[in-house]
């Protein structure tokens, strides 16, 4: 543990040079719109695949990779220079360390979604597309960006029609518990009402980005259900080729020939591998074991393509990188139980200061060790 930790801090110097070059790159804003994905270092390869497939079909749109982590410079490759990198230091969050500490790795990447979109709008982009990390882009997204001129928010519903299969109501209820819109693809344009919504959403996700469906929470996603209530001009993209994933795959009639993928006869633009686990390559997602490679028909070709791209992006190697917010500054691992303790303390945690610090007596680490929390 200690080794992994010190490793990631020793490379600060190289890191600096890489990001200095990147910052120069940043100053030139090449496009009206931007696209962004958010990952921690162990998932860097997923962001690469999302970015590469995006850039292949949309070469004119700037693509950002936001690292919800402390960057480890030596893993970056020359090919990464086609992306713009941002990381947690670019955000101005109140009590940032407290936010980084309280969430698990994936929760944090979800929780930062509104802040990252806001940050890109601040830089000057007129519209920002957010793509969740496990995305494969298969087509140009000009039909999507064309909606930016009249809409503050772009959304894709999980389901476009009732599920007629036996037991369909169970899946429909499942979607109600997860949110009717999929958080894997969203667009925000730089309007006042979009900003108002993002501010409200950010406030919600920084406080409660948890999975607790019985109480109406599904990470960052369920709050999107409020868009039609709060926002005047929004577009629900009802294109069956947008945002195909395990939740609607079986109803979308996926066909693949000559590298062209279609969903219900429409070009398949965005395919999502939500919950894909490289250690179980026979399945599309860890959330539904019914959807195995041999049951998804021609969508299997897309899965194989994704697996190959993931391999080329060195997923095997990058997935072993440490997650900086998983350790105290002395290298001790942070467990979920500790995070829960921290959250249960409520607003009083601020007295600990930076919760990652261990070397002073008033630290959270010292408090944990003292046993006083058990009383």
């Amino acid at each position, binding site marked *: 543990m200690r080794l992994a930790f010190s490793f990631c801090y020793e490379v600060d110097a190289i890191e600096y040079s890489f990001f200095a070059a990147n910052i120069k790159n940043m100053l030139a804003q090449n496009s009206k719109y931007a696209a962004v994905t958010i990952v921690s270092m162990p998932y860097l390869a997923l962001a690469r695949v999302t970015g590469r497939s995006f850039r292949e079909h949309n070469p004119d749109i700037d693509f950002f990779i936001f690292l919800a982590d402390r960057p480890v410079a030596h893993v970056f490759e020359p090919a990464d220079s086609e992306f713009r990198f941002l990381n947690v230091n670019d955000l101005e969050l109140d009590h940032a360390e407290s936010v980084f500490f309280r969430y698990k790795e994936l929760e944090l990447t979800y929780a930062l979604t509104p802040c990252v979109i806001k940050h890109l709008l601040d830089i000057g982009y007129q519209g920002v597309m957010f793509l969740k990390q496990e995305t494969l882009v298969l087509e140009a997204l000009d039909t999507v960006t064309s909606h930016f001129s009249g809409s503050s928010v772009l959304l894709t519903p999980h389901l476009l029609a009732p599920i007629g299969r036996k037991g369909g109501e169970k899946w429909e209820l499942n979607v109600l518990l997860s949110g009717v819109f999929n958080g894997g693809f969203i667009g925000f344009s730089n309007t006042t009402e979009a900003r108002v919504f993002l501010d409200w959403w950010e406030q919600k996700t920084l406080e409660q980005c948890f999975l607790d469906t019985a109480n*109406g929470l599904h990470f960052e996603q369920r709050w999107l259900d409020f868009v039609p209530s709060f926002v005047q001009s929004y577009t629900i993209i009802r294109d069956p080729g947008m945002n195909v994933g395990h939740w609607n795959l079986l109803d979308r009639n996926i066909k693949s020939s000559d590298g062209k993928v279609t969903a219900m006869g429409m070009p398949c633009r965005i395919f999502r591998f939500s919950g894909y686990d490289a250690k179980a390559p026979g399945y599309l997602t860890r959330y539904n074991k019914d959807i195995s490679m041999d049951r998804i028909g021609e969508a299997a070709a897309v899965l194989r393509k994704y697996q190959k791209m993931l391999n080329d992006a060195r997923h095997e190697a990058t997935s072993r990188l440490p997650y900086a917010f998983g350790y105290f500054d002395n290298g001790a691992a942070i467990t979920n139980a500790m995070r829960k303790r921290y959250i249960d303390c409520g607003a009083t945690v601020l007295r600990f200061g930076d919760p990652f610090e261990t070397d002073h007596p008033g630290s959270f680490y010292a408090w944990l060790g003292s046993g006083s929390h058990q009383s």
Partner: protein
Amino acid sequence: MKLNGAAICTIAFENYLPFVHVLTDSLIAHDPGLPFFALLITEEGEPPGSRVPANLNILRMEDLSIPEADARPRFYDRKQLSASLKPALLKHLLKQGYASVIFLDPDMLVTASLSQVIATVAGHSLTLTPHILRPVEADSISGLEKDLLRTGMFNAGFIGVSATPETLRFLDWWDKRLAEYCLNQPKNGMHYDQRWLDHAVGFVNDLHVLRDPGVNAAYWNLIDREVVFDGQQYLIDGSLLKCIHFSGFDPGILPQATCYSREIDITQLGALPALFYQYGESLTAQGWAGRSGIAVSNKTFARYSEGYFECALTSAEIYDLGKIETKQKGAFARPTIMDGKFTLVSALSAAGIRKRLGWSDEESWGVWSRGMYSDLLIPVPEALHDDILISFLVQGFVPRQHPLQEVDVFLNGDFVAGWALNKTYMPVFHTIRASQEACVNGTLVVGFQMRNPVSPFALGISDDQRVLGIRLQGIKVEALSQYKNDRFKLRVTVTIIRITAKLKAWLRDLSHSIRPI
């Protein structure tokens, strides 16, 4: 005024007739000539109401052509049943030829002409109103946004439809879901009919989200609005108030605006208090006796003694009671008889059913509940791939001095039904449904929380000091498919009998037509 092919409708149980009266009057005052329909539901065997207003088109459940196999009237309580019939009613009116139809909850009041709203509804497949149009200010209603995540974005008290194929497809789907899943289980994604409406954003292409603060105004969205009365009409944030929703209204608790939240006082609602008091007077004039015992009580802590609770339990406490003993798989060896045959109280223990908390001593006819809370433990087969219907033969303790006993029924700690028991000369079967998921631990805990139990002593009837709520005579338990099968068998038999009769007649005719050569 001529409104092109539009109609308004509502659904109410007969005890809600005063609300329907007041709504009808308000509608006629602003849109005379607009057809208005009320689906009126009566309990089985109850005589049709004598006070039905003449200016109202009354529909009955029989008019909605609900298939015979549809079992919902058997296991839904009043609120569930009336909510579940909305799509069927809307479909019925569209099929009658109305181009657009608006459903309004009976506790709505029309305060201005709806002609503009109707024009909007006519232009879209489906028109819905969100509960709130902007984030809730921190100090107005605590926890409202999270409540809405559990209960639904759109308020089902207003539904506008027009006659398009897309609308009919949506209503067909909604009706199909509500036939079985019009339940109040937010943790499973259900809140009566309402939560299903959230799917409209995906399923309906031409969905119109009506973001007019003057339509379906209610306590959940009025609190941080500017409300002005200009002598003629009310303006909400500058928009004309067209219909207001008195959800949870009770004249007895004014100035509290609703029985669902103690936080909202009508004096916080700008110029509206006068309208609330007027509404209360109109209801009383129409014979509304008030909703007894529905107002949210102060958080009480149960005192538990001698096997019964003297105070109402909180929902968390009931939830805990529902979990007790269901944790141990197969706590009972003997499975309950699932054949749908009736079991008397005296035979319950032989059938493996245990009366756990809050019961008096058994008597020859059955048993009285005692205290605020009583429950039963019912063992069920674990690997049953079916839902279960449990019917209770019960009556309330309803002497002349105390005519209504209200009971909340809980299954494994989840609220499943609200019973309003009044005077019946025969005990009536009340049925609840347990999903197969609920049966997973092999034991069901059915809890009865009495809202207003009372002792005969307190009423001056006798010196019996037991606090009584319900009298239970027996139970029957059956699998849902069993129930459906029985119906099916019955129908097949009837058909066969008909065919045989026809065949006989045909043979007779034939024999007449054959002449000997």
